[in-house]
């Protein structure tokens, strides 16, 4: 039975989440040097286009097909066989496309780790392997009836599936591809901070669709997800701003990074925690991710645009916080404070496995693609910049 209200709502949320992918592109594009601006935005679109096709060919089925040993879905929905306009609440086709925009966004976030040095041809091959071997199983574990769902792990809108996976995958990829030429020595200041802020604005806006839409109905749960999303983003922005202020200037990039950290952390919790917990989660994530970023810089790791610090570590923070702050009155599950410490342990197990799986498998895929095709452009191409070297285009007239 189709619920027209829910269907209308999820249709709109799907479009909002789609806008997050170019949002990531603009955010990352503003942070790189000008010679790689087009490349960075284009990578997000390419990621989205690639995953869109993979999703309808096999990705959806691997994620939401009949459970095989709790690990992956079967292939009965390959090429969307048997998926029609009917469904439970919303049309099955709408659920397919709603989940598709999440998968596309996730690969776009991963491009952080290879910014300013990836060969497009290799990225296409890597991306196809990554979304098939990393994203699809993770989506199945959490939402398709896999082991994490059977265990009772909570992930409302993708804290593990989208954020921990993309963050730790970006880290693995950055370790395989190596640092950018001149990293640590030459200045690599953002070329266009307003553009990065615009990207951040699109992410914040789209995140309402991301979290509220994950209720899959236009109801009170969606409203709760919506408001805790905004609260957490706001708390994260202020927390990071203050932390940066203590050490120097309250930069706008730090502020928007804090907002994204708050959005990431509330993602798994949005349907389980109340608005006051969201303040704690958002502020905590802002400080936690700021610390992760400082750690990353101190270690000299060139995970260039901090998907690991913000999405990876923010995702861990959010997943664990869900186990602490969940209240039965919101999502029907209690966390540690509500008298159910076991939930926290379940979250710890889920986080540990997702971190290990996404880092390990991504590392292996990256090594294979690097050995066969070479992930990286030549030194000369990197020097000239990927806009010209890879696209034959330039923001200079």
């Amino acid at each position: 039975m189709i619920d027209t209200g829910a269907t209308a709502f999820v249709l709109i949320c799907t479009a909002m989440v789609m806008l997050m992918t170019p949002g990531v592109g603009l955010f990352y594009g503003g942070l790189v040097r000008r010679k790689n601006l087009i490349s960075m935005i284009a990578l997000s679109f390419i990621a989205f286009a690639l995953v869109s096709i993979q999703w309808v060919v096999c990705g959806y089925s691997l994620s939401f097909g009949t459970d095989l040993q709790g690990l992956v879905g079967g292939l009965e929905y390959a090429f969307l066989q048997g998926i029609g306009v009917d469904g439970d609440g919303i049309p099955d086709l709408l659920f397919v496309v709603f989940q598709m925009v999440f998968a596309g966004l996730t690969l776009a976030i991963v491009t952080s780790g290879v910014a300013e040095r990836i060969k497009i041809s290799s990225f296409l091959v890597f991306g196809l392997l990554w979304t098939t071997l990393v994203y699809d199983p993770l989506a199945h574990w959490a939402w398709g009836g896999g082991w994490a769902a059977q265990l009772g792990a909570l992930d409302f809108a993708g804290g593990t599936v989208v954020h921990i996976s993309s963050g730790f995958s970006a880290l693995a990829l950055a370790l395989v591809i190596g640092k950018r030429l001149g990293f640590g020595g030459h200045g690599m200041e953002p070329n266009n901070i307003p553009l990065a802020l615009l990207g951040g604005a699109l992410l914040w806006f789209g995140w309402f669709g991301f979290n509220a839409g994950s209720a899959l109905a236009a109801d009170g749960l969606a409203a709760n997800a919506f408001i805790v999303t905004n609260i957490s983003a706001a708390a994260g922005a202020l927390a990071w701003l203050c932390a940066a202020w203590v050490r120097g200037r309250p930069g706008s990039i730090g502020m928007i990074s804090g907002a994204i950290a708050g959005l990431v952390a509330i993602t798994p919790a949005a349907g389980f925690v109340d608005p006051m917990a969201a303040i704690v989660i958002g502020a905590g994530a802002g400080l936690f991710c700021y610390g992760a970023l400082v750690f990353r810089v101190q270690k000299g790791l060139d995970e260039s645009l901090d998907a690991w610090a913000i999405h990876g570590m923010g995702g861990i923070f959010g997943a664990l916080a869900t186990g602490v702050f969940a209240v039965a009155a919101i999502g029907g599950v209690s966390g540690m404070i509500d008298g159910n410490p076991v939930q926290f342990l379940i979250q710890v197990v889920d986080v540990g496995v997702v971190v290990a799986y996404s880092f390990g498998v991504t590392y292996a895929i990256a090594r294979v693609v690097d050995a066969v095709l070479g992930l990286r452009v030549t030194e000369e191409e990197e020097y000239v910049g990927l806009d010209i070297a890879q696209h034959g285009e330039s923001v200079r007239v």
Partner: protein
Amino acid sequence: MSDWTSPSTASPCGCEVIRMKMVCAVIRPEMFDSVKAALEADGIYGMTVGEVMGRGAQRGIALKFRGKVMPVELIPKVKIEMVVSDADVEKVIGIIRANGRTGKPGDGRIFVLPVETICRVRTDLEDPTDP
């Protein structure tokens, strides 16, 4: 601007004629920060800087794709213009060379030009050593 008090003689109009040169350096953008810091450490503060595009004898860079050659004719550079006393020219050139060099083609050029007159905009005086 202690440089402006360098050796000088009286000009026909009564103003002082100073012996100064313009040092114009076109260097790699990524080396600019270290060049600027090194100049500053040696007391050279005044400069005019611009982002420019340019090429040298190699006519830019040729990138190769699957056998096809794609020329990149103009490469981004930073141009630094400094007016320094004759006595400081060698030092400035040495600092730019030491801090702007990678050893590969494309490190840039330094041009030294004579400076005829220096006029301050803030006052009508021709000689900037006299405020």
